[in-house]
């Protein structure tokens, strides 16, 4: 998993890869936790390389969303694969998260604050 820095407006891009099963989700959670501890409140998760997401993955994303929104920040999602999008739709997560097709679309939404 990679983490990139779009430091012009302090947005961190998270790029998880592969299957987000229980173990991978734990790793993702720790990475996000570290970023939050470092003071990051603006994150974009690019799920272009994620082919499958388990309920643990959903839980981690939801928990991170709640934490970031509590700190006046947000977690936006981009590039969801069709299978993953379907899971999000069933779970109703499409009504909770802001989801975009490209990183820039998501990043630009942060500028307003």
């Amino acid at each position: 998993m990679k983490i990139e820095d779009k430091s012009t407006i302090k947005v961190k891009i998270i790029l998880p890869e592969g299957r987000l099963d229980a173990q991978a989700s734990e790793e993702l959670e720790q990475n996000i936790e570290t970023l939050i501890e470092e003071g990051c409140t603006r994150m974009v998760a690019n799920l272009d390389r994620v082919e499958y997401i388990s309920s643990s993955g959903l839980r981690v994303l939801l928990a991170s969303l709640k934490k970031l929104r509590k700190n006046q920040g947000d977690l936006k999602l981009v590039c969801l694969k069709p299978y993953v999008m379907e899971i999000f739709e069933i779970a109703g997560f499409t009504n909770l998260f802001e989801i975009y097709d490209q990183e820039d679309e998501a990043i630009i939404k942060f500028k307003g604050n």
Partner: protein
Amino acid sequence: MVHSINSLFLILIEKISVIVIIAYLITRTKYFSEVLKGKFTHKNKIGLIFIFGAFSIFGTSSGVEILGVVANVRDLGPMIGGLIGGPLIGIGAGLIGGAYRYFIGGFTAVPCSIATIIAGLLGGVIYKLNKGKFVGVPLAVTFAALMEIFHMALVLLIARPYTEAVCVVQETGLPMIISNSFGMFIFAFMIVNLIKERDTANERDRYFAELERKKYELKIAHDIQQSFLPETVPSLKGFDLAAINYSAKEVGGDFYDFIPISDHQIGLTIGDVSGKSVSAALFMALSRTVVRASAAGKTLVAESMKNANNLIAADAKSGMFVTLFYALLDLKERTLTYVNAGHNPPLILNGKTGDLTLLRAKGIVMGAMEDSELEEKEAKLNEGDLVVFYTDGVTEAFDEDFNPFGLGRLQDITKKYHNLSADGLIVKIMHEVRSFCGKASQSDDITLMVLKVEKIEK
């Protein structure tokens, strides 16, 4: 018998070989390993004092005589006793060995017995200075060499006539220093190895204990989950209802429930908690109970589930959520009024046309957000209709290449075998899922509930 320096050397080294064996035996006793760990008891302290005292006596009696003086490794026992057990054991062993030497007599009796006691004392002092940790091979050997030099110095200081003392030191000095240092090397090397062995064993034990704990935790999660599932399926007039749950090896998360509403209405629940752990199992118990309490006796479906969601959301920590499909079955009206909070929409097969549709309704998973909205819908049920409720353990059952079973296959089987009883269809679906997965093990809980609409009793 007069020995040359060389043969003296050889003899002493022979003696050292015996000492290697004794060292091995002593370091493998229970007393020794306890004290090495720092666990002192009266028993092991006294035991070691006697063991090292005896070793000291052995050192004296197995020595080699030169000019009426015996070159030996008497000091070794008390030194080691002190180094690993502290001043008490060192001095105790030294007193035993020293007393034995003193009563043998000779003109070096006094300096030699004193040296033996001091050897134990100094070993103990080093132990204290190093806070009870063994000092390691180089320092121990240096200590032994210096101690023997000190021993020789004492002989020169105390033994009289002086000229004979000088002779003794000249003849036996070097052999004493070297043999005691070598003996110490043997012991110290063994001790360092013992410590390493013990540390590795401890690490391995910690690792295994951790594994056992994790396994036990998952077993508890499983038992909690099972205890919250219904024991029987209610028999409903005009309907054939069946349900099954297979939990994956040790996880807990899926649940289903039958909730009494009125004499002609019953609530059907199916849900799935995120994650696999004791906390997921407890969250499942919470959710199932809150849903039951919010729905029992209530005919307003969306409203009771919204209440349930608020209660669950208040307790949901670290993003935990539960997907839920709740339907109120009216046995008289033959309707299904339902809401879907993020759960896999159940299949409904039309008995007449054979068409398959999904019971979709808008709603976010329970516990994610307070006051979230749930869309309420109603389905009319006719004779021959079939409803299949399931959790993602069915559609996401993977084969060895990570291909999912998929909704498509579930739909095909439902269509093909819709004439079977509710029980029969469940068995058929399970059979197909198991043969699809092949050797791949079940990765998630599987829950299936089938409701078949029978002839209306007139």
